[in-house]
């Protein structure tokens, strides 16, 4: 169960000590289904430069780690393992909120090569939120053992983002992964993410809503995704947006408060 010397004994209580804002060039989120070897990828990239904490206000454990690549510091955020981003559980909500409102410079989605179809669910949902994605097809060794072959190039073409095949337990493919992350984070790799098509009614509704949302949020958030979430009456997303764009009466009371002060 991943018991390490850091997670035993008195070490478990050390998480609260943040070492202050160390210099970081890029923030990279790491997403994936449970049991895809996400932690193995995380550990392989960050080595011992890790620390754990809690997602603010949530009971879900968060791991963060750093690695350097060509002189730049990458801060890797390990998102909770989830099957989807539909916010059915705290883990899913944490992962989704972070991808949308945390605005990482790039997101790596780790998928299991032995059951790609099931794992692609999450990939498509991540692509709806952010275009800065690298897909890491892990456990290629297992897939080979099960005589499953995956056309990595054609997958990359369909998804419109870099796809890297890895066997993280043996350290295979990590160099390419690090390069792809760097390319997506600094913009030298342009992506053209796959768009899931919905039924005509929904697409119509999105078509009407999206321009309005785009005018409001600009390029900061993905307006198509926000349109979808708003149409679903997603309360957490609405609440998050209300924080960014407080309603008028609250605004007035704030102004009034300032006047009184």
């Amino acid at each position, binding site marked *: 169960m991943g018991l390490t010397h850091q997670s035993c004994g*008195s070490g478990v209580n050390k998480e609260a000590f943040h070492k202050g804002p160390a210099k970081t060039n890029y923030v990279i989120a790491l997403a994936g289904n449970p049991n895809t070897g996400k932690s193995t990828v995380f550990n392989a990239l960050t080595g011992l430069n890790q620390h754990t904490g809690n997602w603010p206000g949530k009971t879900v454990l968060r791991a963060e780690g750093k690695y350097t690549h060509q002189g730049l510091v990458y801060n890797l955020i390990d998102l909770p393992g989830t099957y989807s981003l*539909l916010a059915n559980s705290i883990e899913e909500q944490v992962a989704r909120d972070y991808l949308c409102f945390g605005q990482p410079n790039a997101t790596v989605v780790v998928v299991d090569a032995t059951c790609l179809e099931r794992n692609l669910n999450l990939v498509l949902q991540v692509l709806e939120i952010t275009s800065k994605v690298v897909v890491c097809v892990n456990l290629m060794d297992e897939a080979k053992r099960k005589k499953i072959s995956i056309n990595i190039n054609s997958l990359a073409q369909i998804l419109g983002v870099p796809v890297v095949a890895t066997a993280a337990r043996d350290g295979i493919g990590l160099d390419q992964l690090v390069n792809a992350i760097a390319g997506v984070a600094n913009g030298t790799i342009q992506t053209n993410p796959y768009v899931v098509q919905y039924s005509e009614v929904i697409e119509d509704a999105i078509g009407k809503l999206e321009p309005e949302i785009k005018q409001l949020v600009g390029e900061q958030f993905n307006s198509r995704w926000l349109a979808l979430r708003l149409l679903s*009456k997603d309360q957490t997303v609405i609440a998050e947006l209300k924080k960014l764009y407080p309603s008028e009466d609250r605004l007035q009371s704030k102004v009034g408060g300032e006047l009184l002060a």
Partner: protein
Amino acid sequence: MSQYCSTRFANILHQVDSLNPMGKLHMNDTIVSSIYNATENISQQVVSQREKPKIDWDKKLDDVLTSRVFGFPSMLLLLGMIFWLTVAGANVPSAMIAETLFWGQDRLTDLCNYLHAPAWFHGFFVEGIYRCLAWVISVMLPPMAIFFPCFTLLEDLGYLPRVAFNLDRLFKKAGAHGKQSLTMSMGFGCNAAGIIACRIIESPRERMIAMLTNNFVPCNGRFPTLIALAGILVFGMGNTFGATAIVVGIVLLGIAVTLAVSWTLSKTLLKGVPSSFTLELPPYRKPQIGKIIVRSIFDRTLFVLGRAVCVAAPAGAVTWLLANIYVGDLSILAHCAHWLNPFATALGLDGFILMAFILGLPANEIVLPILIMSYLATGSMTELESIEDLYNLFVVQHDWTWLTALCMMLFSLLHYPCGTTLWTIRKESGSSKWTVLAALIPLGIACTICFIVAQTARALGWV
């Protein structure tokens, strides 16, 4: 500007209401099915399986290891095998390490004599601190060096989630969360880590149950104690299988108590309906033997040893002081032990054992070393190289019976968690009240069970 934005946002929300009145678009259903169609389409284009493997070994294995009939027996068998390897394999290296370290003690004694150091100096540093450390290292290191890699091997193979799967049903029945079987498995490594792991349980009620009962499985720090005591218990018979069976029995008892206490709590203090979750079994994986050995040596063996050494050095010093500062005819330690003795005897223990548990609060690793220190301060032995010497010290010189060893094992399994774990419970629950309960509930259970066992055995004339 921001007022302009907020009006806009309010307008958008209005528009949403008109586009999707009363949720007539059935958004979530259509979104999910559209995504599923897309993934099916994509994977058909990129994935190909040359030939279906003739036999799905993972499934075959799971059919046995998680079946209703063979699930528990195979679990016991694997656990038993690991304990047997540990019990049978640890004695020889233990004796070798002890020989080296006690040779060192003799040299230190020579040095003290050469320097004409005062007697208290020699007593405090050599007989107090050094001897305690030597004992901790020689008796704890070999079992850990065998046990932890074996246990990590099971982890790496992907077997531990199957254990959780097997136990899941029982935890549901006990009114607890199925994930508690995972946090309990974590507790076998370290109870403090197990408490942190309880975060994966969303419901506060079930999380609290998991936290209050995590202590009932023996952690890293208590396994060496339990294994050594089981060795003493069957020493006369010279039977490693007997010792293995006892340790397995103790582990099973721990799980049974976990379930019983969870059930009681869910019916009394923490009432409610258990929530459900889906547990996915990961595939079996080829273990990486080299990495396992390195990882378990560094992350567990040396970690536990380091912790034991850090706590044992001061504990050795304190115990030596308590045993050598005299008030009247008796040392402070003996005074305390005598005062505790009637109560301890009723529990099948003796005053010194109870004192060792009290002084061992910082870490369970040091309970046995403290006990040995306390006995040695009054006894005449200077070296302990094997279970045989331990047997002589406890049974021959201090009148232990099998009941004493058994009750000490039970007390060790069930008593309050170590200081670190309590501190972690305090942090995780944010409540002093629950932390106190987390210490008192196990203590109460330990005292009750030891009392019943001891009194029954005596009443039936078995001792």
